[in-house]
């Protein structure tokens, strides 16, 4: 249970960062925190108490196996997250070149 709560705490830290920070790069870091808390959550879902690695083989003990599907999902999600973060950082660099600052209070041409 404590692990799930820590996971949720990580999510909240990320959300706090996205909402309160003024620096573009720090907002990106906050988003990454949020993403990775969900990835951790996914891995935790697949965990089985005293489970073995999910390799069905005579040499390995038969007992309970951990669920391999969330692990596959996490790998996919990490790759997608990588693409999304690369895109975000590329835009952040372009923003810095155009405005000469990372401060979002000074990047405010559009009015939502």
């Amino acid at each position, binding site marked *: 249970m404590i692990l799930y709560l820590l996971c949720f705490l990580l999510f909240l830290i990320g959300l706090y960062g996205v909402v309160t920070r003024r620096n*573009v790069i720090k*907002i990106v870091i906050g*988003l990454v925190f949020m*993403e990775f808390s969900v990835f951790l959550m*996914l891995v935790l879902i697949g965990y089985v108490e005293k489970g073995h690695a999910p390799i069905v083989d005579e040499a390995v003990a038969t007992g309970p196996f951990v669920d391999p*599907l969330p692990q596959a999902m996490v790998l*996919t999600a990490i790759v997608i997250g990588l693409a999304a973060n690369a895109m975000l950082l590329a*835009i952040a660099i372009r923003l810095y070149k155009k405005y000469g600052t990372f401060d979002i209070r000074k990047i405010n041409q*559009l009015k939502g």
Partner: protein
Amino acid sequence: MSQLIPLFVILPLAAAFLIPIIGKFLEGFQKAVSSLVFLFLSVLALYFICSGLTTPITYAVGGWKPVEGIPIAIYLVADGLSVVMLIIINVMGFLSGFYAISYLKRFTAQNNFYALFCLMIAGMNGVVLTGDLFNLYVFMEIAVIASYALVAFGIEKNELEASFKYQVLGGIASVLILFGVALLYWKTKTLNIADAGHMLKKTPDRSFIIFTQLFLIAGFGLKAALIPFHAWLPDAHSSAPSPISAMLSGVLIKAVGIYCIIRLFFNMFEISYELPVTIAALGALSMVIGVFLAIIQWDLKRLFAYHSISQMGYVMTGIGMGMIIMSRGGDPKVAALALAGGLFHLINHAVFKGLLFLNAGALEFKCHTRNLLKMGGMWKQMPVTYSTSLSASMAISGIPPFNGFFSKLMIIIAAIQGNFYLLAILAILVSILTLGSFLKFQKYAFFNKPGNPDRQNISEVPFTMCFSMIVLALLCLGLSLLIFPGIREIILDPAVNVIMNSTEYALSITSI
């Protein structure tokens, strides 16, 4: 026939891969390939719907057979609702891509544009076809990451800022959706939508389901830009190049927002009472606030973007009303009318909002401004743009015989028959305000005296832009035919049946 389904994903993906490689050496390759691919897929989708869709057609990726009745492969499912969405996506994709051939002359890096464009459509086709929760997330990310890049395509200050805002909010939405998917997997131990729906019906844990639903509705609501979550939409849709605005406003918010809400909340979750009330309330809020925000705008594309929020409100209101009537056990005919009205408005909105953004692009192409106050007197110089935008304006503000009139009428009649008098009054009021803001657009863009003397030598836009606009204007008129019996049974009714008979979807997939 089921072997043809993966083509909807494979062909645009292959095009997106080939365009940057071959397009470097072959002039015009990117334009020819993207147009041909989307034309072919539109025809294929029309063929699917004409051949009658009584049962969903499924395709198991990798050919994995179900084990002990539990589906383990990723299924691609084409049923009435998905095929209607496929037609919208690919027809709009073809017309926007064709329009972009002339429009893109002022941009460099055309190969990148077309590659991203194909990637975005591959993602959206995947979202509407897939029958798997995690696969839905993957395809959705493909579509939205491509759209992030396309919004920033102009790499000027506004575009970059809009794209950053869109990415931060879109990223939060993706995280919420992934969390919702994780929770569903935790409870049901399956990712297949039909199978998960089957398992959720056995779960006695109501609070868990409501918790999951909240995450999913917040995530997809952010993607669909319903009113409390709408902050990114006007910036992103007005900053993108016009063909992309047409795709984003006309198709993307529907495919990754509204469609997912319909699919998950009708075909997977059991219909409760609280949820449709939430959906209808969000819809009504978007409808009213969107139009008030729209009417005060002077930037042409921002005006249209706020109207997208408002019109999505109509769709959500129609769908939500149908759901409330079903959960109360009311008259199924009224529920079907409300759902059909919502879906019909969704189709219509793709057509007329796509056309309006293309018109805005044509005006910007010639006048080099988006400010309504700096335009004026264009009706003589740009007759095609003028007449097509007039038909789109009449369609969106609900003037007969254009398609928008019939879909709004269906929603309002359903609201009155289902005793939602407040919603009916709001829908009429919003329609009047919409008419007002489009009169403003027509007056300032086309009729006022030209403010600038060097605008005298402006002529009509090139052929490919005119072609797309004329086809869409004809569709604005032609789609009114969907309301008549005979045609309605072919296109609208299969989609409505998918929503109404939620158990049938689950049965037809789990029993493969």
